[in-house]
């Protein structure tokens, strides 16, 4: 007993010595530099206004160019697929024919033939701009001129080709099978809302207003594969689906979207019907400009294929009934799905995203670890107690 007391006293003295050495007021020198976050320089308000005006001009300029293209479009009586207009360079007839052939196969793959709404693809080939008198024109976003009350049968998709596809179209890159496949995917994704107009005609008033209010985020892709190939959707752009979500990323979305990712039908319903209550006038010209990073501004994940998946699931007739319905969106959609919108969407969401857990919850590994430590402590105490010698 006496010897153990000595050890205990020595231990306490050791702790005291350490405390005197390391704790304030004497303190210890810092082991590293303190964490300091400097501000990134931001533009002056005047510069930010100039940038905002440049962005507005880009959108207006894209609208002008789409409007200029509309009267020039002439349908090719021999081809059912979209007419293609190239801007920025004059192409050889062989190059044009190659692109048209790929477009024909894309069109057939979408199950489209002769359509009431004629689609035109305006491909902007990349060229250098060196003007200081005007901002750089729109080069990194697609834009669409959807049918309106003055032109009910024309839809034009503006597709900037960028450096890679420009050199491919101009024949500066080998047209290998893999590249052709990716080129076809790029063209298909570029059709955007125009593919829906071609397949199902002009939507009813409520559906059109709903889509306009949410900038067509649920109708950007009609194809059955991912937007850039098999399984490649906006979710893939947001992060590798094999790994858990970053919470910063999750909470950058609206609450309804987060609830839908968590598998809650009420959240899914709210995410789907966002914008449905608004009564929007369809502008003339009806220019649709998806956000620059549209995958970060979605209400559903992967929203770009939501309407396309519904169309494939319910079949053409039921989808057409929804598309042209005069009923409010929730009623028309529930009728087409033959299920409550929230439930169907929650199931659809589960096909892409493992539902996340919201709210406080101890992780399984944490619980196991805590129980293990508790059991170990109990065994240790019990073992010690059994070895006690009472005199």
């Amino acid at each position: 007993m006496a010897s153990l007391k000595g050890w205990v006293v020595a231990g306490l003295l050791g702790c005291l010595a350490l405390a005197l050495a390391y704790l304030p007021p004497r303190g210890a020198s810092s082991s590293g530099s303190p964490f300091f976050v400097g501000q990134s320089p931001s533009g002056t308000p005047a510069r930010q206004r100039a940038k905002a005006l440049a962005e507005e001009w880009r959108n207006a300029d894209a609208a002008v160019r789409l409007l200029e293209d509309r009267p020039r479009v002439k349908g090719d009586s021999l081809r059912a697929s979209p007419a293609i207009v190239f801007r920025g360079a004059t192409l050889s007839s062989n190059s044009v024919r190659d692109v048209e052939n790929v477009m024909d196969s894309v069109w057939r793959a979408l199950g489209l033939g002769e359509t009431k709404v004629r689609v035109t693809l305006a491909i902007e080939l990349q060229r250098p701009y060196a003007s200081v008198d005007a901002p750089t024109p729109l080069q990194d976003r697609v834009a669409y001129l959807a049918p309106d009350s003055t032109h009910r049968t024309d839809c034009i998709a503006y597709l900037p080709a960028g450096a890679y596809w420009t050199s491919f179209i101009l024949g500066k890159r080998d047209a290998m099978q893999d590249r052709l496949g990716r080129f076809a995917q790029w063209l298909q994704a570029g059709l955007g809302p125009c593919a829906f107009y071609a397949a199902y005609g002009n939507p009813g008033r409520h559906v059109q207003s709903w889509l306009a209010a949410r900038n067509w985020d649920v109708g950007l892709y009609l194809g059955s594969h991912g937007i850039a190939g098999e399984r490649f959707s906006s979710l893939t752009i947001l992060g590798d689906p094999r790994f858990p979500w970053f919470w910063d990323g999750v909470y950058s979305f609206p609450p309804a979207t987060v609830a839908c990712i968590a598998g809650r039908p009420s959240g899914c319903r709210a995410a789907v019907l966002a914008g449905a209550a608004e009564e929007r006038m369809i502008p003339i010209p009806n220019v649709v400009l998806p956000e620059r990073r549209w995958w970060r501004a979605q209400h559903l994940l992967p929203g770009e294929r939501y309407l396309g998946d519904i169309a494939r699931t319910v079949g053409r007739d039921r989808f057409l009934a929804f598309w042209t319905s005069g009923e409010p969106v929730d009623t028309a959609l529930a009728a087409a799905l033959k299920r409550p919108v929230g439930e169907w969407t929650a199931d659809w969401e589960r096909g892409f995203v493992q539902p996340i857990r919201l709210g406080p919850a101890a992780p399984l590994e944490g619980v196991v670890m805590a129980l293990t430590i508790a059991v170990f402590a109990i065994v240790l105490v019990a073992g010690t107690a059994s070895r006690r010698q009472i005199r």
Partner: protein
Amino acid sequence: MSRVLLLWCAATLAMSPLRGQDSVMARAHHRADSLLSSWREAQRLADVADSLEQVRATAGSDTIAVGALRIIANPSPLPLREAAERAWPAIDSLYGSVAAELTEHPYIFRAVDPDTAVRRTVLHVGAELPWDLDVHATSRILLTTVTPPRFDHAFADWLGATLRPTLRPGDERSAVYLQLVTVPSEAVRGCFLGDIVRCKDVLQIGDSSGVLARWYVTPAEREALVSGVFGDYFARGGTALSLQKCRRHQDDACTALLQSLPPGSLPRPLAPVARMVLVREALRAGGRDAYRRLVAHPDSPIETRLSNAAELDIDALVARWRELVLAARPVPLTFPWWASVAAVLWTAFFGFCALRSSRWRL
């Protein structure tokens, strides 16, 4: 009369969509023109505002001049002069005679209290630094943020980094040595063994055609690259079949997949630090005007620029680079003679303590 009226009405109705189109177009044009004119005006105002902001941000600041370095900062305990005196020799020795142009690129710092929770004003010009940095940390900041004079994009793309001075050139060379002996690449191994042509290949000097075959020489390397680095990328869509073939050791499929990659996405066998060491050696060999010669002709091929800078044949320069890197072999870890004795003694001591332990008695 009624027939004429009817014809007029029909013509008017037929023309109305065209007129509508014209008015929509005119409105769109007008809007674009109006925005363009507003943007031009806003640009002019923004230029003036930026210039005024530059003046405002530096008003009441001290200017510290050491060599050609100019540092504009608000009064603070930051040891900027001492740091600049340390950094200037390294900067001057790298950029040589062109370093004199750094007077045109002053550093603008705002020293701030790192411990306060008071909201700082928005920063428009320069950079913020905590004012409790020591001389070493401050000089490191000066070295890592110096604006390389006349630096061009072609050179930066090839280098894969920005050419700035370093206080530890030996560490860079050792890092390259480790890459030469550990990177699983026949081309790199050939370079390590003294094949200068291979060294030029892996440093991306000279002929830029067929880099795939020259960087990834063996079918095994190409397969490893496809399966490892690009496995997930190729696993989707039309390339999935080719990926399977590649994984079954069909080199044609692997090569085709790698050739389909966008330009510039093929991983370089050696990290940018290898090229950095080569450039530093070229500048060292070429004397004070070496950097001036390096940046004199941005359109020339890299090997010509390096050769001009060093005033050496490119093969000779690469050979010097290789010798320099081989000489930087890291020193193997050696124990002093008494370390093993101390280890045995400590082991024996703890063993003795353990044997002496008795049952607990409370």
